[in-house]
C-alpha cells in the first residue's frame, strides 16, 4: 500500500524563549490510503497539534511532512488551502456549522469554493445528506437540529467533496453514547464503502474500537501504535 501521509521527525514548538513549549517532540508516523486510525492520549499530549499539521492548517517547526509525496512544510498558505480544498475533509468537536444557515447551504459551502454549478451543488449536497441519514432536513438551520444531527451535517459537509482524507478531532466529544455510536458507525461505513482514509482523535476507548489502528500520543511523542485484527 502507498503512504498517504508521512511524518518524518516532526516537531512543533509554540511560543518563544522562556515561554516556548514543545507540543510535538519528533513524531514519525505513516498512514496508508484506506486506513482508519484513532489517535488517543492524555490531554495536552499533542493530538490536536498533530491533526492541525496533518490538516495543513498549521506548519511544523521542523521535520518533513509528505502528503502523497508532496512536501507540505514547503507549501505557502494558499497552496495549503488548495490542498485542503481538494483532498481533505474536517469534522470538529464543536460541530462548527455556520450560524443561521441551513444544513443544505452548509454542505454546499465547500462546493461553492470549488466553483461547482448550482445544480451540481444541490445534487451533491443532497446526496451527502442522504449518506448521513438526513434526507429531508436540508432546509433546517443549525439551531433547529440536535447535536447528533449537527455533527452529521458537519460530516456531510466534510465528505461532499469526496475527500481523500477525513480528519475528525473528537467528533463525538459533545454527544451521548448512543449518538456517538451512530456517528462511529457512519464513519466506519464511509471508510469501508467509499474508501475514505479517516484519522480521528478520541478520548473514549469504546469509540477507538471502530478504528482499524490506534496510535497513542504521550508528551508529544508516539507512545504506541497498535493495529486491530481486521474486523471485516
Amino acid at each position, binding site marked *: 500500500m502507498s503512504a498517504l501521509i508521512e511524518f518524518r521527525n516532526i516537531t512543533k514548538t509554540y511560543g518563544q524563549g522562556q515561554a516556548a513549549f514543545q507540543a510535538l517532540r519528533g513524531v514519525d508516523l505513516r498512514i496508508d490510503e484506506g486506513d482508519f486510525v484513532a489517535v488517543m492520549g492524555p490531554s495536552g499530549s499533542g493530538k490536536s497539534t498533530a491533526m*492541525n499539521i496533518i*490538516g495543513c*492548517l*498549521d506548519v511544523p517547526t521542523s521535520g518533513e511532512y509528505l502528503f502523497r509525496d508532496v512536501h507540505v512544510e514547503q507549501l505557502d*498558505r*494558499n497552496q495549503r*488551502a*488548495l*490542498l*485542503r*480544498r*481538494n483532498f*481533505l475533509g*474536517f469534522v*470538529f468537536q464543536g460541530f*462548527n*456549522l*455556520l*450560524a*443561521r444557515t441551513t444544513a443544505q447551504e452548509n454542505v454546499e*459551502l*465547500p462546493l*461553492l*469554493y470549488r*466553483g461547482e454549478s448550482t445544480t451540481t451543488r444541490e445534487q451533491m449536497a443532497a446526496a451527502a445528506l442522504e449518506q448521513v441519514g438526513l434526507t429531508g432536513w436540508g432546509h433546517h438551520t443549525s439551531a433547529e437540529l440536535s447535536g447528533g444531527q449537527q455533527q452529521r451535517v458537519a460530516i456531510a*459537509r466534510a465528505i461532499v467533496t469526496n475527500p481523500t482524507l477525513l480528519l475528525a478531532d473528537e467528533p463525538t466529544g459533545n454527544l451521548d453514547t448512543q449518538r456517538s455510536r451512530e456517528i462511529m458507525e457512519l464513519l466506519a461505513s464511509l471508510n469501508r464503502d467509499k474508501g475514505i482514509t479517516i484519522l480521528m482523535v478520541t478520548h473514549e476507548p469504546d469509540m477507538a474500537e471502530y478504528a482499524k489502528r490506534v496510535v497513542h500520543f504521550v508528551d508529544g511523542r508516539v507512545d504506541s501504535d497498535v493495529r486491530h485484527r481486521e474486523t471485516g
Partner: protein
Amino acid sequence: MLWNSFLLALREIRRNLLRSFLTTLGIVIGVSAVITMVTLGNGATQAVKNQVASLGSNLLQIRSGQRMFGPPGSGARAPAFELADVAAIQERISGLAAVAPEISRTATVVSSANNWSTSVTGSSNDFLLAGNWQLAAGREFSKAELDGGQSVCIIGETIRRELFGTRQPLGESMRVKNFSCEIIGILVSKGQATMGRDQDEIVLMPIHTVQRRLSGNRDVSSIQVSVQNEGDIDRVKNELTQLLRERRRLEKGEDDNFNVQDTRQIAETLSGTTQILTTLLGAVASVSLLVGGIGIMNIMLVSVTERTREIGIRLAIGALEREVLLQFLIEAVVLAMLGGLIGIVLATLASVGLAGVMQVPYSFNLGINVLAFVFSAGIGILFGFMPAKRAARLDPIEALRHE
C-alpha cells in the same frame, strides 16, 4: 468566483437586514444630500437664468462700478450716473426702443387697512417698455408728472393684493413712507415668483419723485437700455461704452468704472452666486458621504470579529485568502451601492418635492447621480478593504477556536 462572492454577500446582507440598513444609513443620507443639493442648486440657477431670459435678449443694463459683484469698494468709488447721462444716450445713440433710468429705495407702503415693506423704483415710462410690462388698468405717467416729480405711482399685482385685497384701487391714495401717493396704474401680473424674488412686488414712481422724496440726491443707480433690433446689440454696447467713457472723462488706458451687460451676462453674473452656493453645499454634503463610509468600516470590523468562527470554517474548508478578502470587500461594496441606490431614490423624491416648494424647475441630473453612485461604491471599497484584509489574514486554527 466573483458572481459567487456577490451571491454570498447578498445572502449575508439579507441575513442581517436591519443591521445592513443601519450600516448603509450614512451612505443613504450622504448620497441623497449631495444629489438633492446639487439638483436644487442647479434648479435655482436655471430659475435665475429663465427669469432674466424672460426680459428678452435686446436688453442692456448699465451699472456703475466694474462688475455687479466686484471687489468691495470698486463700486463705491465709481461715480453714479445722472439724468444727463440718460438724456445723452437718448440723443447720441440710434436704434434704441427705450432708455430707462433706475433708482430704488425700500419703504413701507400703507393703505387704509394694511402695510407692506417693499422696494420703490423711480424711473420713466421707458421702464415699462424695457421690462415688457403691460397695464391692467389705468395709465402711464404723464409728462407733467414725470417732469414735476409728482406723487403718483403704478403698482404691481402683489402690492395691490397685499394692500387692497380684492379691491381695484385705481385713483385711490396710499402712503409711501411719509407722503401720500395717487395710484394711477396697475400692472398685469407676470406670475413668476422664483427664489423669493417676486416680480409683481413693484411700486413704480417718476424718478424725480423718488430722488426728491426718498433718496435725497440726484443719482441714478442704473440705466436699462432696450434695443429696437437685436442685431444692433453689439454696436449699441460699443457706442454706450464710448459715450460713457467720454462723459466720465476716462483717460485712454484707464479701466471702465461702469459696466454694460446684456441679458446673457446678467444671467451669468446672477447665477454665479447660486453656482458657488451649490458647489459649497455639495461639498458639505459629500463630507457626510465620507462619514457614511466610516460607518461601513465600523460595522464591517464588528462583523469580521463576530464572524471569526465562520471565517475559520471557510478557511479550513479551503477558501483562499483572496476569496475571503473578496467576500468581505464585496459585502462592503454591495452595502455601499445599495445605500447609494436608496439615496438616489430618496434624493429624487426630495428634489421633486422641494423644487415644488421652492418654485425652481426640477430636472434629473444624470451626471451627479452617476457620480454619487460611483463615489459610494468607491467608499465601499476604500472602507471595506481594511476589515476584509483583517478577515483574510486570520489564522484558521485561532479562528476556529474563537467563541
